[in-house]
């Protein structure tokens, strides 16, 4: 045992240099800082206090989604000219981090909804943009991403759902699984194969032949209302096709990059939540006559969390900054950010539970939820192993 240093913790943001020409400056712009503060305050009031109840209920209340929609943030990736918030990618990342700090489920809503919105914006026809972007931006329609299937996970090129041309439209047959917020989504960005070639569709919830079945008993992000979609002779009009036949996989990969960035930032928020909860607990919980934060082995875990939170935050911001700059390196750096954040979150959540002891194994404390949620983060938008392969190949090719 030793005394805890009374020196203040180093700031997560280095001070601004007095000399504008001094070189590297790692700080947010004034508008981004103001946005971050607004996201943090909103998440602290409207998300974090309720996340445990949503998790136990395995559902996100409509009112909570309505409150999020009222902020306009569900239109984060949609330009202002088309009714959206028109955020830059750094600001979008900050939004994900703050929502993720409060609740990984509702952050997942932002993720999949933004993926669907981005796909329409990037690859949609004029008619598709005019119809869907205003609805998605206002949250009057919820979008979801339907790629995974019972037999298809990482190998997205192997989707078994079949699209068959039929007159002016298409008929879809197959199953989609693990569709986040599929229980309430109004439109699905859905991937199939037509004559062996990948193709994307925007499938409306009321399409004839589409059945949505809730998935329950999920380890983490329990309030994210996962669904399985059954497509049995599901008829969609020709206008539902997004991009041409043969471009489906490319659309999926480009859209997954947005999702991966969103998840990485949200996961950085989980690490901060672990750190915040652990610091508070370690300052209050007394064992052997002192707060447990004065025990060095607890300090080691707190130090790891603090370093992980900062590193994940800055890796995410770097990926977003490169994306804002249109730098092709953004894709690689997003893999790095997601890989680091998700693996660091797992360790942070394990340590947070450990610090909380028996209380950490109880739903009375949020850290057990962080642990369950962090496991999901190492699987979605590319498993840890897929990230490792992508990162290593990118580094070898550089």
């Amino acid at each position, binding site marked *: 045992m030793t005394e805890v240093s009374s020196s203040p913790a180093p700031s997560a943001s280095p001070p601004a240099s007095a000399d504008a020409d001094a070189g590297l400056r790692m700080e947010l712009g004034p508008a981004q800082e103001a946005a971050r503060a607004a996201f943090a305050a909103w998440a602290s009031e409207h998300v974090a206090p309720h996340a445990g109840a949503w998790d136990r209920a395995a559902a996100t209340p409509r009112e909570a989604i309505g409150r999020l929609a009222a902020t306009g943030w569900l239109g984060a990736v949609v330009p202002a000219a088309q009714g959206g918030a028109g955020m830059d990618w750094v600001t979008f990342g900050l939004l994900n981090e703050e929502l993720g700090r409060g609740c990984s489920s509702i952050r997942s809503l932002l993720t999949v909804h933004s993926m669907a919105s981005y796909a329409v914006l990037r*690859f*949609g*026809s*004029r008619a*598709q943009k005019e119809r869907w972007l205003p609805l998605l931006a206002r949250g009057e329609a919820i979008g979801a991403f339907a790629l995974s299937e019972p037999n298809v996970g990482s190998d997205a*090129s192997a989707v078994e759902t079949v699209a068959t041309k039929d007159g002016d439209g298409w008929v879809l047959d197959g199953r989609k699984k693990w569709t986040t917020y599929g229980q309430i989504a109004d439109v699905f960005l859905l991937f199939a194969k037509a004559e062996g*070639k*990948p193709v994307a569709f925007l499938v409306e919830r009321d399409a004839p032949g589409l059945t949505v079945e809730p998935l329950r008993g999920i380890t983490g992000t329990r309030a994210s209302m996962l669904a399985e979609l059954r497509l049995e002779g599901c008829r969609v009009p020709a206008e539902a096709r*997004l*991009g*041409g*036949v*043969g*471009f*489906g*996989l*490319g*659309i999926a*990969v*480009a859209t997954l990059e947005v999702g991966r960035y969103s998840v990485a930032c949200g996961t950085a928020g989980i690490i901060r939540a672990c750190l915040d909860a652990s610091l508070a607990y370690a300052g209050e919980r007394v064992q052997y006559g002192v707060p447990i934060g004065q025990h060095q082995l607890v300090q080691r875990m707190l130090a790891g969390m603090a370093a992980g939170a900062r590193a994940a935050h800055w890796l995410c911001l770097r990926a977003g900054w490169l994306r804002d700059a249109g730098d*092709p390196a953004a894709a690689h750096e997003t893999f790095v950010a997601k890989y680091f954040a998700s693996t660091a979150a797992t360790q942070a959540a394990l340590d947070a539970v450990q610090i909380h002891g028996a209380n950490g194994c109880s739903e009375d404390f949020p850290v057990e939820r962080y642990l369950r949620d962090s496991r999901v983060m190492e699987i979605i938008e590319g498993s840890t192993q897929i990230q490792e392969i992508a990162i290593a190949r990118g580094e070898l090719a550089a």
Partner: protein
Amino acid sequence: MTYYHIREMTNDEIKARVREFVSRFFRGHDLQDNEDLFATGYVNSMFAMQLVQFVESDFGLAVESEDLELDNFRSLDAITALVQRKSGAAV
């Protein structure tokens, strides 16, 4: 090559740039101008989108939804024609 000069590029110059990029995926294969790239077996499902990104980044063009048809990317000739059509380049 920078896309700022695309409007002054000739058909042959555009095609040469397209050939240079596409040939990276077809090492050891003598590509014909009208050869079906997707029928060769050299490329995977991602190749079509890589061609889209190439056209956008190298020529500074916005590939719209209505352009996302495989026929626009099926051969060196087709990609060259798409670039010309989108840019109004000299022939």
